[in-house]
């Protein structure tokens, strides 16, 4: 009895979570533009989606910005984490506060403050500013992913390598980097996902001609029903589903709730 109640409750919650997604998926195959009436099966919205220049351009921008921003953030952030780890106490806590600032700050404040900065220094809003903004909000997440791995590191490992005659850079690459790699990869993936999903900061820091997928969806959603958005949602859902299943399958032997933890980290930027 109790078990049945639990199952029913869980079922209702999952229904709540998936109802909107499945509605979009079903209606992406609806022949009519209507939100409520079924009017035959069609693939035409998918064709229109791929022919829609605005959506395709913004998809390209979204992926380009996310890739460049998360790569840059990963490199700069990993170096920074190593540096921070070796800092004295006072400097460390100062820099860590600086790191937490954009994480805790509401997105809208981050967005408008960057916009003010860019306009203040007379930088045209566009791809460059968008990229700078994305790197900025990605950086802390890379650092917060790499630092715990550094803490787990054996302190004498690096010194031992130096004693054996390795140059510092070589020692770092051969000894430290492999150890902290999981943190670096997590940081990169986190940064990449955050970039893909961001709307608010992009909204304020982009300019003419450059629009991310989120921004395009926002302006389309404000114009009402658009079956192309449904088709887009369906494709994105499938991609996300496949990626997550692959990652989960590959790592399920190791970490149990790894995915959950990461998702929890995402929270502040949404």
């Amino acid at each position, binding site marked *: 009895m109790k078990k049945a109640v639990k199952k029913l409750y869980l079922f209702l919650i999952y229904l709540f979570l998936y109802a909107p997604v499945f509605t979009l998926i079903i209606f992406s195959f609806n022949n009519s533009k209507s939100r409520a009436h079924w009017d035959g099966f069609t693939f035409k919205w998918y064709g229109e989606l791929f022919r829609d220049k605005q959506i395709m351009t913004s998809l390209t921008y979204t992926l380009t910005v996310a890739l460049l921003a998360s790569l840059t953030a990963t490199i700069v952030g990993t170096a920074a984490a190593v540096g921070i780890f070796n800092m004295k106490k006072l400097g460390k806590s100062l820099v860590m506060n600086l790191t937490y600032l954009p994480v805790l700050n509401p997105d809208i404040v981050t967005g408008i403050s960057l916009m003010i900065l860019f306009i203040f220094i007379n930088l*045209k809003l566009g791809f460059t500013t968008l990229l700078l903004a994305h790197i900025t909000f990605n950086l802390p997440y890379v650092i917060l992913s790499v630092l715990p791995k550094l803490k787990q590191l054996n302190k004498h490992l690096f010194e031992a390598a130096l004693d054996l005659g390795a140059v510092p850079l070589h020692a770092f690459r051969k000894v430290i980097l492999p150890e902290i790699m999981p943190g670096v*990869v997590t940081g990169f993936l986190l940064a990449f996902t955050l970039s893909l999903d961001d709307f608010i900061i992009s909204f304020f820091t982009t*300019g*003419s*001609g450059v629009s991310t997928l989120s921004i395009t969806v926002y302006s389309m959603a*404000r114009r*009402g029903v658009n079956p192309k958005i449904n088709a887009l949602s369906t494709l994105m859902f499938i991609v996300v589903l496949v990626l997550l299943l692959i990652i989960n399958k590959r*790592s399920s*032997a190791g970490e149990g709730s790894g995915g959950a933890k990461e998702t929890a980290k995402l929270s502040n930027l949404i």
Partner: protein
Amino acid sequence: MAKRIKRAATAVLAALSLAVMLGACSGTGSSAEKVTINVFNWGEYIGETTIADFEKTYPNIKVNYENFTTNEDMYVKIKTGGSAYDVAIPSDYMIKRMLDEGLLNKIDMSGIPNYKYIDGRFKSLSYDPGNEYSVPYMWGTVGILYNKTMVSDPTDTWKILWNEKYKKQIIMPDSERDSIGVTLKMLGYSMNTKNIAELEEARKALIQQKPLVQAYVVDEVRDIMIGESAALAVVWSGDAYYCMSENENLAYSIPKEGTNYWFDSMVIPTTSKHKKEAEIFINFMCDPKIAFNNADYIGYATPNTEVMKLLDPALVADRNAYPLKEDLESSEIFEYPGDEVNKEYSRIWTEVKAD
């Protein structure tokens, strides 16, 4: 474990970079001479194929087409100077404001031969008396779009928007000049009033109306009215005619207190880097065939004499769609009231929505 994540990540990365490269290739194409112009227009305000037609006619110009929702949004984007637009399509009072603030380039009319098709009635208007800065695109009115099956009271007055009977059935535009303007007319004042007491009265009326309003929207209004989710909406004439063509229960009325009639014109902001190409685009938009496609699709009144000959005669004869001078006697064109009073308009609209 780490290796697995790494491998998965590498795979994801590789797939994505491939996608990016493919996208980039198809995006930029081969010719390096290509110029991209940024066109800034209202939502749902151009023919379906116009941009594609333009790019086909001028293969060396690529159009980056973006939308704004209100004159104010557009103004802020251009004023902050963060973005470089080559063509924008603001309304009368906003053109005046932008002109006063030095945000507009002079247009070289010799580059726009199709300007001859613009009816004289739409030239030398107060916001651009010398016809140097703007080329008319569309014009129209503000009125009430209503559902005949849901509304029984007379719709020839703005007062119906304050009728308790239509609680949560009324859609108001999320646009400060339009909503405040309609209210001022309802109260019997000028839409261009600079009298703070009258504006305060309008603010009170709008706050009093708030419980009756279902939503403050701009572009969404089409779906809401076509889907019969609301009974009454304050809309621009073109939206009204579009909705009426989709749902025959809908009708459009211009209240007897008078309304706002407006002109949206193409301008070239000073931020433009491709003035020549911008002029080519403007000229293209005045080409009778293209202008016909635009007017036919979006439903607004065209200032283009050739297009009027091509349109359905019944539509051109419809005095709600193409009002004559005498129909607009009690109506007004928005004027820019100056920075001080304009701030009051903005403040009032913020406060109405904040309440």
